[in-house]
């Protein structure tokens, strides 16, 4: 059997719909993870005991498979009365998993802000909120953008795990087409190509953002 371009063109619109779902779920989860990760990182800095209490759960989530976490939330939460749709589960599980990764990136970013900037904020009598908002966070952002962008690319590639709970994303659509037409070559190859394009586009966007932020915000 050879690669059938006509068939490939035929199924492309269907795959694009799946790709839209992939992008939606990934971006929503990433947006939540950006906030969640920052909260975790700031909590860990706030108090020694909080730092200790959060260390194990973060390590646990980071070193267990996202797929099992997805299944745990999707199948396990209803037993305590929380019923989530596949979409909600996907966003929640990915946001939670990647918050833990992002918290480590933020931690490194916060440590990367020059000691003198913290001292200056204290010397100028800034309270904690103002210190982070006006001095520390703006300088931390350019330091975390490359690693956070990398993580977004990883999230794209992890999103097909949601096919396991029948979320209608790219891989789910492709395997449905395959099962119905007995042709897997075209849909799967196309899906691979779409992932490559999405990954490259994200990397390009992050590089642009990096260049722009680096020029304006960083103070050395």
């Amino acid at each position, binding site marked *: *059997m050879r690669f059938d371009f006509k068939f490939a063109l035929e199924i492309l619109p269907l795959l694009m719909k799946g790709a839209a779902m992939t992008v939606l779920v990934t971006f929503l989860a990433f947006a939540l993870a950006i906030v969640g990760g920052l909260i975790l990182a700031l909590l860990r800095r706030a108090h020694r005991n909080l730092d200790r209490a959060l260390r194990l759960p973060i390590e*646990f989530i980071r*070193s*267990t*498979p*996202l*797929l*099992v*976490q997805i*299944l*745990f939330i999707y*199948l*396990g939460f209803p*037993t*305590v009365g929380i019923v989530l749709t596949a979409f909600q589960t996907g966003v929640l599980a990915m946001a939670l998993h990647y918050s833990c990764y992002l918290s480590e990136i933020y931690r490194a970013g916060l440590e990367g802000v020059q000691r003198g900037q913290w001292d200056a904020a204290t010397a100028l009598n800034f309270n904690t909120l103002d210190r982070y908002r006006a001095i520390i966070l703006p300088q931390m952002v350019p330091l975390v953008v490359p690693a956070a962008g990398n993580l977004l690319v990883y999230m*794209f*590639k*992890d*999103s*097909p*795990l949601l*096919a*396991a709970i029948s979320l209608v994303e790219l*891989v789910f659509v*492709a*395997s449905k087409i*395959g099962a119905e037409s007995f*042709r*897997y*070559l075209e849909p*799967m*190859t196309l*899906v*691979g*190509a779409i*992932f*490559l394009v999405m*990954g*490259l586009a994200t990397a390009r966007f992050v590089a642009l953002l990096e260049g722009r932020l680096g020029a304006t915000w960083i103070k050395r």
Partner: protein
Amino acid sequence: MNKFLESATLLAGGALVTVELFLLSAILAIAMSVIAGLLRLAPSRIVRVATACYVEVFRGTSLVVQLFWLYFALPTLGISLEAFPVAILALGLCFGAYGSEVVRGAIRGVSSGQYEAATALNMGRWVRMRSVVFPQALALLLPPYTNILVQLLKSTAAASFITIPELAFRATSLNQVTFATVPIFASVLIVYFLISLAISQSMRILERRTGKWRGPVVVRAT
């Protein structure tokens, strides 16, 4: 009680499959990382470009897509493989591509003085790589490689997509029979956590062993 024991045995068997899958694909991934990492620095431009293509394709497309492609699409091209070899191949090639970047970075991280000294001592390319550059690179690459191996372990769960009876797959099927969802998945998560602890601890021992190979710290004039 009997039922509990039955379930525990089933999951333990799944854990064994997971560990087996991890070890075999880790061997392939390590081999591919070293080969591709070295070839990325080869003198021939064609070899470098070809290796870069391998790395970008396997890093850029999702592992799940690679599993499906090798399992469902490859047979239509005339090559049929069993599920287990497919899983090892996909995991090994995918994480070999990730790992090759770590290897490449580590080799380039060895200071140029080491190359010059080896050349001054009249060592050939091969001897220089084997007995001077690579040992020092190894000390540099082990910490980031630990992350890759833990990622690899986590990704073995995706092999359940092509019906390999590993831990995640057995958890799902056991759940369909017993409906003891929370205990099943909680214990499965704990087992994965323990395996990844074992991985990172053994890597730490290896790190300590190879610490003596770490190159001199170069202080650059700024």
